[in-house]
């Protein structure tokens, strides 16, 4: 199939950036990233600068790939990362616009690559259970109800790709933050420091400059792991409770 690609090119954080148009031939079996590989080979052969994009596992789990395709984070398919998106979902003659995940908290690096280290800092603020290696009791000492474990898993399935931020009209990171808070606080071993965690992680999220959640639900639709906004409600609950009802003040 013959495709027209309009790809966001930006030399670096200080460059303004613009959409540039390319022609590429693809086949239906290719993944979207393989189609970009073909384009890059073409560009290299012409001694031009290839398009930079983040990618690694190419099986939908590492969370590295990150592009907005025709306005949709990770493209039009449900529960699919860009690397799992295949060209059979496009037609011969299509024009496809490819942009980076845009958010001021995800500063541009180059072309389609952005810096998502804000997510790491949110995790560092409190996205863990404070247990040192070797301190653990036997794995079966605390029974965890199957449904609870399963719910915790649903939240833990987050791959940290940032599609929630990219898709949110407000560039809010609430789905990411709430997924992590939910994963840990649903489990008894993580509930111990649940209130403190909610405080610390939300504070960091705010500090990073993400927007505010206005419950549009865009994140839930675009999340490749289909993480539910019920997690956001849980975080709201925990944050409100921990702010207003405990006698502790988290600094």
């Amino acid at each position, binding site marked *: 199939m013959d495709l027209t690609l309009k790809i966001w090119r930006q030399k*670096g954080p200080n460059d303004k950036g613009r959409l540039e148009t390319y022609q590429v031939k693809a*086949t239906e*079996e*290719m993944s979207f*990233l393989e189609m970009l*590989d*073909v384009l890059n*080979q073409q560009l*290299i*052969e012409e*001694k*031009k600068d*290839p398009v*930079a994009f*983040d*990618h*690694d*596992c*190419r*099986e*939908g*789990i*590492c*969370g*590295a790939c990150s592009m907005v395709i025709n306005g949709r984070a990770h493209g039009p*398919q449900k529960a699919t990362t860009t690397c*799992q998106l*295949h060209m*059979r979902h496009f037609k011969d003659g299509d024009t496809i616009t490819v942009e980076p995940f845009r958010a001021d908290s995800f500063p541009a690096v*180059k072309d389609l*690559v952005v*810096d998502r*280290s804000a997510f*790491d800092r949110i*995790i*560092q*603020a409190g*996205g*863990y*259970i*404070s*247990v*040192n*290696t*070797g*301190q*653990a009791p*036997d*794995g*079966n000492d605390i029974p*965890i*109800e*199957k449904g609870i*474990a*399963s719910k915790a*898993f649903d939240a833990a*399935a987050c791959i*940290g790709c940032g599609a929630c931020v990219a898709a949110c009209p407000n560039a809010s990171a609430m789905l990411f933050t709430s997924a992590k808070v939910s994963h840990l606080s649903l*489990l008894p*071993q993580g509930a111990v420091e649940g209130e403190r965690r909610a405080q610390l992680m939300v504070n960091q999220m705010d500090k990073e400059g993400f927007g505010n959640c206005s419950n549009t639900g865009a994140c839930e639709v675009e999340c490749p792991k289909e993480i539910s906004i019920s997690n956001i409600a849980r975080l709201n609950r925990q944050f409100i409770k921990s702010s207003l009802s405990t006698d502790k003040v988290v600094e």
Partner: protein
Amino acid sequence: MIKLDPKIPKGPLAEKWTNYKGTMNLVAPNNKRNIEIIIVGTGLAGASAAATLGELGYKVKVFTFHDSPRRAHSIAAQGGINAAKNYQNDGDSVYRLFYDTIKGGDYRSREANVYRLAEVSANIIDQCVAQGVPFAREYGGLLANRSFGGVQVSRTFYARGQTGQQLLIGAYSALSRQVASGQVELYSRHEMLDVVKVDGKARGIIARNLITGELERHAAHCVVLASGGYGNVFYLSTNAMGSNVSAAWRAVKRGALMANPCYTQIHPTCIPVSGSYQSKLTLMSESLRNDGRVWVPKHKDDVEAIRNGNKSPNDIHEEDRDYYLERRYPAFGNLVPRDVASRAAKQACDKGHGVNKTGLAVFLDFGSAIQRYGKSEAYKHGIENPDQKTIEKYGKQVVEQKYGNLFEMYEKITGDNPYETPMKIYPAVHYTMGGLWVDYNLETNIPGLFSLGEANFSDHGANRLGASALMQGLADGYFVIPYTIGQFLSHEIRTPKIANDTQEFIDAEKSVTDRIDKVFSVNGNKSVESFHRELGLIMWEYCGMSRNAEGLQKALGLIRELREEYWKDVFVPGSKDEYNPELEKALRVADFMELGEMMVKDALNREESAGGHFREEYQTEEGEAMRNDEEFAYVAAWEWNETDEAVLHKEPLKFENVELKVRSYK
């Protein structure tokens, strides 16, 4: 020849580790504060080591080329993690896990290391549960297990099909906690490009800031490499695109030894290559072989018809199908171990029976399973004489419950509906058992240079059992290195902070700069990618699922030629002072080419068939692998030298606790 001392503690096998821990040298907390450790890699092994060493009070710097530690390829492991917990009361024990691992590795691993691995396996589960890893549970709230290939007990813990992801997130969060506390400094988007040795000891690295292109010198009292395996030497593999050998290879270029590089695990059930643009291969879980039947058409005209699309696989009559695994291995059938299943698929395709356009695919068919399940399910619903439609409806329901997510993934990638038409699968490179040679302390032959996880060679011998990679990575990081690193560091408490402006660092940085300049200066016409693909084809053809002396000799020549061509004709766009993924790849591929040569030499040297290494000359009349314990029960540790002639060093393997046997699946 370097004398390789594995430093295995004395005493009975079961007491070695306990006694060793009890008597080893320690570093006092006030000294730990002043000791710096560099860790390269943030997968299961690297992240768990960094977190634990940080908790202990060492000053840790951890490096990853990814934008976040959480992207390391450990994240893609699906199946599970083994541990000798015996929660199922089915007779599991530390010894049994040890024995299964030694036997699964075709008797080519070190007894003491494997026993220690089995011993600490139980602690790993406890640790991960405490960190909040949401393992699968029973209704009673206790941990669930499943069984995996090659063993008779149920000892695999799992978190749906994403166990690796959940374990890595656990290690990553523990690491993040240390980063927040200031014990660990995190350098993401930094790639290690050299190890710096001072007075023979590893004292630092040269890293490139991948965003700015700047080279940085980082000094420390010791260096730990946990940089993963080298399966991407084959270009196409189930590894991530960025997985590479460079960190380990840089160590080799500084004198570390590469052990058993030819041991490569080929996984039998992957989605086949669909065209020349293909960038990576996707694994389909081994569990599919429980119900799927592997076959190819008996007749070539049927093969042709399927390839042309004139016939669908469902048109081929039962008597015209060759269920070759069931035919050749009646006792194990479709459930033979990975290496056996992979070779059989290759043989079928080599004979021209491959069922896709490229001729490199076999069918994995759930038709029989759907029929079987459908009938029994219909019976359960009180239908005595179900019609075909009812059977299929119920059968598909059962198959969906068991394998729904895998079927979905398959359909996403191929566009075929595996409920209607059989899956096409083909073996693919999955894991490398070989790696940096390390002793019992996980220290390489360079003092102060340690290696963990897939990057070292230590525990899996010639073949790794399913669900053991995660176990080894975390064992090394959480429970082994925090102790054994003290054996080295306890002698370093008087060593002041290592300076990074000494001649050694200046020289190392210069050599990296030269290497980068050199690759730009070629300014040829071919892309890095095209060389990588060519290398992959050579490796797959001659040093893949089966090998022979003639092919390996030929491969040596081909790789040499490719290397020469590379340095004459490669083209790297852009400059070194910017974010430049092509430059990153160029340096990695250059290393892969050198490694590839060493793999071929190792494969040539090992004149036997063991685990993932199958030499066609050494097989039984029925085509089964033939080990040679008399001559090859050793670790082949290779030294690189400047004349490009790798030197072999041998570490004999002593088996005092298990009896060496031949594996048979007939």
